[in-house]
């Protein structure tokens, strides 16, 4: 709902529906990993909101992952996450520039590509 101001919320909501509709079936087959994505409104590490993108079960939710350890954790600023998710910035660049921080398995991180997120259509 509109109470939060993160742009990433919009993408995550779409992702949720995307996965729920079965369109994300392929993704769970192709990737089958659990990612945690920490999004900070302004500054990395401050007031972060955590999203779990579970590409094993095909779910997206806010909060902590209960099913053990996530395969990789990414930290972004809100704008940078949107850029990466919409293909405006490639994840390698984001990493090199320090706009994205990675924790966890790097082979899992390698599968984190912009095409796993649905692209917003424009009114």
């Amino acid at each position: 709902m509109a109470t939060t101001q993160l742009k990433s919320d919009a993408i995550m909501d779409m992702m949720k529906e995307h996965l729920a509709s079965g369109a994300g079936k392929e993704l769970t087959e192709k990737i089958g990993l659990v990612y945690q994505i920490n999004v900070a409104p302004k500054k990395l590490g401050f007031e972060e909101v955590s999203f779990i993108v579970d590409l094993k079960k095909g779910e997206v939710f806010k909060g902590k992952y209960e099913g053990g350890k996530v395969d990789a954790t990414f930290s972004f600023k809100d704008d940078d996450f949107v850029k990466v998710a919409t293909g405006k910035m490639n994840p390698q660049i984001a990493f090199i520039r320090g706009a994205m921080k990675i924790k966890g398995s790097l082979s899992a991180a390698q599968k984190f590509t912009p095409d796993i997120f649905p692209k917003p259509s424009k009114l």
Partner: protein
Amino acid sequence: MAMRDLVSGGAACAVPGSSSSSNPLGALTNALLGSSSKTQERLKEIPNANRSGPGPQFYPEDQQLRSLPGSELDQPILQPGAQGSEFFRGFRSVDQNGLGAAWDEVQNGGPMPPMGPLYEPVQPTFEGPPQRVLSNFLHSFVESSRGGIPFRPAPVPVLGLSQSDKQCIRDRSSIMARHFFADRGEEFINAQVNALLSSLDIDEGIQARGHIPGRFQELDNYWNESQAVVKPGLHPADNWAAEFNQHGIDHGGPDSWVQSFEQQHGVNGWATEFEQGQSQLMSNQMRSMEMQNIAAMEQTRKLAHTLSQDVNPKFQNSRFLQFVSKMSRGELIIDDNQVKPGTAPGEWATEYEQQYLGPPSWADQFANDKLSHGPEQWAEEFASGRGHQEPAEDQWVNEFSKLNVDDWVDEFAEGPVGESSADAWANAYDEFLSEKNAGKQTSGVYVFSDMNPYVGHPDPMKEGQELFRKGLLSEAALALEAEVMKNPENAEGWRLLGVTHAENDDDQQAIAAMMRAHDADPTNLEVLLALGVSHTNELEQATALKYLYGWLQNHPKYGAIAPPELANSLYHADIARLFNEASQMNPEDADVHIVLGVLYNLSREFDRAITSFQTALQLKPNDYSLWNKLGATQANSVQSADAISAYQQALDLKPNYVRAWANMGISYANQGMYKESIPYYVRALAMNPKADNAWQYLRLSLSCASRQDLIEACESRNLDLLQKEFPL
């Protein structure tokens, strides 16, 4: 090798084949320029010459020391052509024409000209005042180059040269020697130069290059030089990549990678910190004004807009320059304490404060940025932030080094899309640059096209309307740009320009144009709605909400139900309620339903949004943009099949509706039908090659559809090839 080493001249800096490791930026420029050996040599030699010579200085030195990293670049940068002549002029002014003349001869004559008679290859006699003697002496040195024979100096009278003169001569002669003997080996050159120098009683000791006050200027000079050389066709990214590969071999190995990463990470942390403080500032030119008054944002925006029109290339230069300069600053603070006490770490903050209006306003400014945080909180926050960060960083680095770095390197080299490592890096670097450039556009400043054929058209407004009606959107945008350049207060011109850009799938420009329309006519409902829609597309909720509420407030029928105090604390639910009231007051008003649809999109209540748009469509069945809104809403709620038929309706009504074509592509891509999505993107791009979003999506679809072979065409924006490959 870490960037920092490059700048600071660490031990790793010794460039293979070069005699000096103390000239770090030479190495940096090498890294940027790679191949041109002549250029490298020249770059390496220049700084000292510039420092000691009376030649023109790019900026006053004292200002250099006070200014912030990058802020010196606010001053106009020399045009590439001018840099060359500047260089030569610097050359000439040293030694009062002696060397300059020699240089001219060489330039005019070429390296090995067949012109004998003017300069007899005999030892000239040296008489007259020192200038003259020196000049003749140097001529004889130049002479020796023509025959390619070793230089045999004649005895020279004592000239009483000062230290700096000697250094000048030394530097310049070695530059020249490298030009003359570009085809000879390094040894030969050195021998020549040494012969000259020893005869002039100049020893190599002078060469000791300390950190001298002109240091920053040198950095800039290096950079300007390199810019001038890059322009004529070298592809910096390729060289960069090549260089990177080379270093990977030279200094490779997982350990050094990790180390340099750590170092870089430290630098980045610093840079990030710095950028954060300035994150809201829109461009270099605007920076100082913003500092003074953040409330005057709108005003300054206009100013930057004007500036951005004529100084575009400088923007680009200065952005990256700033980056380099910033790094050099960080390096100096850490490594060169002793040499440059003026920029010792502790004083950096002071310097910053001095630069901008003294401590109190700086704090205020920061407080503004940080909303409610006062200065004290800031200090605490910073302190605690540091406490948090450092261990976290260490952990992170440890984590990183624990990982199997070999794998990572290999994997990275393979690249996720199967390109060679060099390409991946080069692309990445290109992207980085283009993003830097694109950064300036996100600030809501309208960017005019260059070379607009409609400038000077007798009635560009009418022409623009006509073109828009015909559906030639890109042309219409040009005509309308010409109109608003002529009449900057023409609200309708700006509005139509904004609509054109929105239909052309460029929300950034649409927003920028609509802002101007809004400035000219703050109560125009269409403008308010368009701004609401564009900001919704950009996922900027709060801003979108503000404009949509503005629509209600300014509406002649519904303005009464919109309490003005609500504008200060906008909650989505309140506004949606008010719009529902409005729709009950007048159920036949399609516009209210449209705004409601947009509002529900904002809160991602897509089912309600779809209902609203469908209601509106019953009232306005021929509104193509409404069909597209319906389609986009359906697509966003993962009803792609419905979305495609809605887009089809829109395209039946307006075949050149770029946004609908691009949306079609998105719908296919979101269903995993990447191959099917490609022709739609290509179609959209054929109509508006400036639609950056569509290019990015096309690239994604190409790589997901295993058409890596055409990514190149996408990168180079080769539409002909793409259209041939993907006919619709």
